């Protein structure tokens, strides 16, 4: 029994480690469904909403892509760490869920042109007079963040002098600034900006220079050129028509901090 079990496990490991060929554009169209990987624990990117249906930026984008292909959208839920393995093992055709482009990932999967950006920037108010994030490195400044965010320890190197107030949630960080407990938040600001709408009488400022910008493309199977070509052309249209930005604003409550500049040459 135990031997059989071990054999079975070994088979699974073998099956998972062999790479299956990604489906080409023609194969997807003739099959009639596009398998889209989304992370359901990542609102407002995608999550199970009030009616237990998937909703969010990625869901709208995924449906739009499937429409353009003339196929049905089949959403496959993946955790962040499963996105690359799911593409490699051909369980999904495309991966959404803020697939940040990194060289390590690009060895394993393919990417389209950027769908959206991720910007680590500064949200502050008119109470402090600074123009760039480096000026935050003063001992009379209090930075707020969420306890448990990895960026807290990263920031200790870049901005060692300010005091740090660690609170519990996205909304509480913005509230702490609005109430005067802290001066600024340094984070992936897109996830926080919509909470500033709760305090409209505060003069919010987002510093124009970002500390770090990453670009998220759509993840596809490596060497799947037919699909990549199609998606790049479609994404150019979705960017120029305003679809991406409108959808972003619909779910995030504010425009993308660093908008994608559409480029017709790939």
């Amino acid at each position, binding site marked *: 029994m135990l031997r059989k079990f071990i054999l079975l496990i070994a088979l699974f490991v073998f099956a998972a480690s062999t790479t299956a060929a990604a489906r080409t554009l023609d194969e997807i169209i003739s099959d009639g469904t596009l398998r889209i990987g989304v992370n359901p624990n990542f609102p407002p990117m995608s999550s199970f909403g009030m009616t237990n249906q998937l909703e969010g930026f990625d869901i709208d984008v995924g449906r739009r892509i499937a429409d353009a292909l003339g196929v049905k959208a089949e959403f496959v839920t993946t955790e962040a760490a499963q996105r690359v393995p799911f593409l490699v093992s051909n369980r999904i055709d495309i991966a959404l869920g803020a697939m940040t482009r990194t060289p390590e990932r690009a060895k394993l999967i393919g990417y389209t042109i950027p769908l959206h950006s991720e910007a680590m920037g500064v949200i502050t108010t008119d109470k402090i007079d600074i123009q760039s994030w480096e000026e935050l490195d003063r001992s009379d400044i209090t930075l707020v963040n969420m306890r448990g965010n990895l960026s807290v320890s990263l920031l200790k190197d870049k901005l060692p002098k300010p005091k740090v107030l660690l609170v*519990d949630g996205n909304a509480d960080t913005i509230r702490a600034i609005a109430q005067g407990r802290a001066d600024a938040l340094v984070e992936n600001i897109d996830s926080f900006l919509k909470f500033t709408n709760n305090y409209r009488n505060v003069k919010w400022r987002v510093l124009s220079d970002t500390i770090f910008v990453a670009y998220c493309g759509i993840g596809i199977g490596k060497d799947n050129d037919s699909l990549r070509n199609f998606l790049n052309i479609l994404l150019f249209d979705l960017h120029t028509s305003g679809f991406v930005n409108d959808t972003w604003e619909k779910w995030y409550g504010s425009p993308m901090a660093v908008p994608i500049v559409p480029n017709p040459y790939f």
Partner: protein
Amino acid sequence: MNYTFQFTEVWRELPYLLGGAAVTLQIAFITFWCGAFIGIFGALAKVYGGPISKRVTSYYVTFFTNTPALVQVFLLYYALPDAGVLLSSMAAVLVGLTLNAGAYLTEILRAGVVSVRVSEMEAATALGMSRLQLLRYVMLPHIAKTIYAPLSNFFVWLVLGSSLAALFGVEELTGRAINVSTASLRSIETFTIVAMIYVVLTVLASGSLALVGRLAFRVKAKVF
């Protein structure tokens, strides 16, 4: 499932964590004694007070024992500023937990006050005891014996319950534990060590309370 435990990184942070434990004890001590102060007046009001003070005390106790301490501190920290009162992280936690402790200690102390039998009080008066003697030799031994166990339980609860302060920017033991586990990505190891620190804290607290009880009121309490 072949996770390998790695305590080295977390051990290095032990002094930092122990600093957090000191803050935890500080919160527990301050809120316990301030809460006890409220509790004494609450208990006396509930037993000997007039109808109005009895009712007011009841409302206070009912409200604070029927809402989570977390919610109470949340409102003090985030809702009061909109009414113009900005409490610091530590102040909000101390005020919130003190009010919460005051409500529980009112009930605990009230149980002690009513445990003194009227016949014994009358006997003491008949023996010609002064009010002070009556309090010291008749009332306090009864009260101490009745409330001793719930009182030390409640102190332990305060030590553990003060961990909610981590959510409001206080760098006590739990808050520092989350910081350490985020930086080291070693949450299981961090919280194992933190659990042991909490055990040491509460055993020390129960032990010293047992000692006080034995020396001052001859209450024989067991720590284990």
